[in-house]
């Protein structure tokens, strides 16, 4: 029995050092050498070279001149990149229905001329709350508003959306999608930055009730 415990203790410490410390530090070192940009967070910069976020992480947009991402349940106000979360509201949740109805009303008010019905991705919270993508339909649906706000023709804005639409990987994995931050950066690069109202708060869209 004593020898069993001695062996167990030694194996516990040894595995802790090998798999809990050596392994992750080796991987960190190799990643830093091989893929430094990816390993650090895939940061993207604007035309002035300022880091404006990670291309993989959704951020809130409220200006009509920018495409807006899906609603977010991350953190108390949405798009909290240190508080990822879905709404976790179930298929018979009144809160889910009411929350979506509120978002819908706001979208209809902001996009009076956009086609109906509205793609449901725009009123449903993503799983992470940080989904950086829109479906092509949900992006194209916003083209009329963005074009009007920037004083551009719809065709020119639509062309940028199309150019930024990624297809399924190898034709069959996942779904077609548009990265919202990269799309907005491309608009700024091509057509200049819009003049923004002073930024209100971090959160920009109607936040959904937090899950917990």
């Amino acid at each position, binding site marked *: 029995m004593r020898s*069993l415990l001695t*062996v*167990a203790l030694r*194996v516990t410490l*040894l*595995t*802790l050092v*090998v*798999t*809990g*410390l050596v*392994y*992750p530090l080796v*991987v*960190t070192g*190799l*990643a*830093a050498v*091989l893929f430094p940009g*990816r*390993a*650090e*967070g*895939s940061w993207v910069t604007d035309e002035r070279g300022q880091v*404006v976020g990670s291309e*993989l992480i959704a*951020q*809130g947009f409220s200006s009509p001149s920018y495409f807006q991402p899906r609603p977010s349940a991350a953190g108390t106000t949405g798009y909290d990149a*240190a508080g*990822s979360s*879905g*709404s*976790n*509201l*179930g*298929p*018979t*949740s*009144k809160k*889910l229905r009411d929350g979506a109805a509120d978002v*819908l009303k706001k979208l209809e008010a902001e996009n009076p001329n956009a086609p*109906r019905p509205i793609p449901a991705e*725009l009123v*449903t919270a*993503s*799983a*992470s709350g*940080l*989904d950086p*993508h829109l*479906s092509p*339909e949900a992006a194209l649906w916003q083209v009329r508003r963005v074009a009007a706000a920037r004083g551009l023709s719809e065709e020119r804005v639509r062309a940028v959306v199309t150019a930024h639409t990624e297809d399924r*990987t190898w034709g*069959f*994995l*996942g779904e077609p*999608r548009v990265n919202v931050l990269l799309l907005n*950066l491309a608009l700024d690069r091509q057509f200049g930055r819009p003049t*923004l109202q002073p930024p209100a708060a971090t959160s920009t869209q109607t936040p959904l009730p937090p899950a*917990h």
Partner: protein
Amino acid sequence: MTFVGWIQTLAFAGVILALTRPLGAFLYRVYEGEQQPLPKLLGPLERGVYRLSGVDPRREQTWVEYAFAVLAFSALSLLGTYAIERLQHVLPFNPQKLAAVPADLAFNTAASFTTNTNWQSYSGESTMSYLTQMAGLAWHNFTSAAVGIAVAIAVARGLTRRLAPGAPKLIGNFWVDLWRGLLYVLLPVSILLALVLVSQGVIQTLSAYRDVTTLEGGKQLVALGPVASQEVIKELGTNGGGFFNANSAHPFESPTPFTNFLEMVLIFAIPAALTYTYGRMARNQRQGWAILAAMGVLFLVGVTSAYWAEAHPNPALAPLAVSQARGNMEGKEVRFGVAASALFATVTTGASCGAVNSMHDSFTPLGGLVPLVNIQLGEVVFGGVGAGLYGMLVFVVLSVFIAGLMVGRTPEYLGKKIEAREMKLAMLYVLIFPLIILGFSAWAVVSPLGIAGLSNAGPHGLSEILYAFTSGAGNNGSAFAGLNANTPFWNVTLAVTMLAGRFLMLIPALAIAGSMVGKKVVPAGPGTFPTDGALFTGLLVSVVLIVGALTFFPADSLGPIVEHFLASAGKVF
């Protein structure tokens, strides 16, 4: 449902099928071969760790010694993780200065990771320091996986070994099996594939969280961490504990459809391959294929149901003027869509992994029923690494017994008679599982402490409770995550559930091995029920389904099933 969505599912099944044989043969060589792979490189390393741990690799153990070794190692490593969590505020690699983890949560989490469950009552990014994630949690992702495979190999030895009369009844050396799994399988694959994940955008950094000014001039604090090294073993070891709260839905854990596909393949790779390893140990490959076929049938039924259900609109949004052409998108990511989300949900619950790439709580009622039932079937639809095989082998023993009853013969399996002792142990294994799930669920639904955690009303609330204990006992770890389980009541009851679901089931499985290993092998006769054909696969599937359905149907019908009918009638709560 779309054609492309099905291609994705079939491609996944094809890759798993193609991997089963080579990986299974590799595992056989690692655990049962005369010489392990890469003897020049890894041989000295293996001998070195034996010397440092004081293990004599040639000395095999009885099932009792084997079980004691498993328990001693698990208990000590549980304490280790508890200590790291409680002391993380004074330990290094804590750039966010996170406080010590509270006692009940630390206990729950230590039990959770020791048992290969990875139930998470916490949000990783706001609770656990980088050291706790790496050394406290990912450490267990390796060791609990290696323990699972070791036990499965030991159980397989018990069933397949042919001992000379009077020979000692030994089933292998736990320490050797543990180290071989780590050194030859889990570590090399993890190092390689962690880098593949990084190349796709999964982060791997020890830097502090980064404050950025967004394009519109807002502020965003972006949580970072050594994610890729944890991500790969989280799936390969069917652990499932996410670095971040949103798990594999978080773009830093799975940024592309390719990483999503790779992560699903990692979840099923070892559980599927072990059936081939088992066939080789049984000296009849068809024994392994018959088991794989049963798992495959159950998996395909599950994924078809889940995909079908999730391709439907979310009933809560039905009255709104929105187009749900893409199916139920609440709690799902655009880059995955419903097809890859339903597939991932079926894979992660079939295999007792528990990683999620979409929020199961927001699935349609029948879509959410699939992961729940997958776990309730006993985590044998591929199952956890190792745990799935030894769980399925218990069902095999049960099926052989039932077949024996039908023809009135003493049942035998691989030439060994199955007698009263083995049947009692198998029934113990089968009964402990629903006892803990239904017992604790019953307590939680009548206790204010249990109800307090709910975030959904109506039958969905019952589903949240039932799912939590099912997930705990099945050592799955996924959740209907609206449930706020970070309270002393939930942390303690779920910790007990997880420990019982692991060790009270692992011990009977090892005991069956210990009792079978010394039995005389009689040659197959005309009355022997063949266990390597389609008939047996059919019987095995039926037994798994009947045991699961009889046990859990009443509870499920009050949760997801009644919710389905209420949702169809337009009810909300």
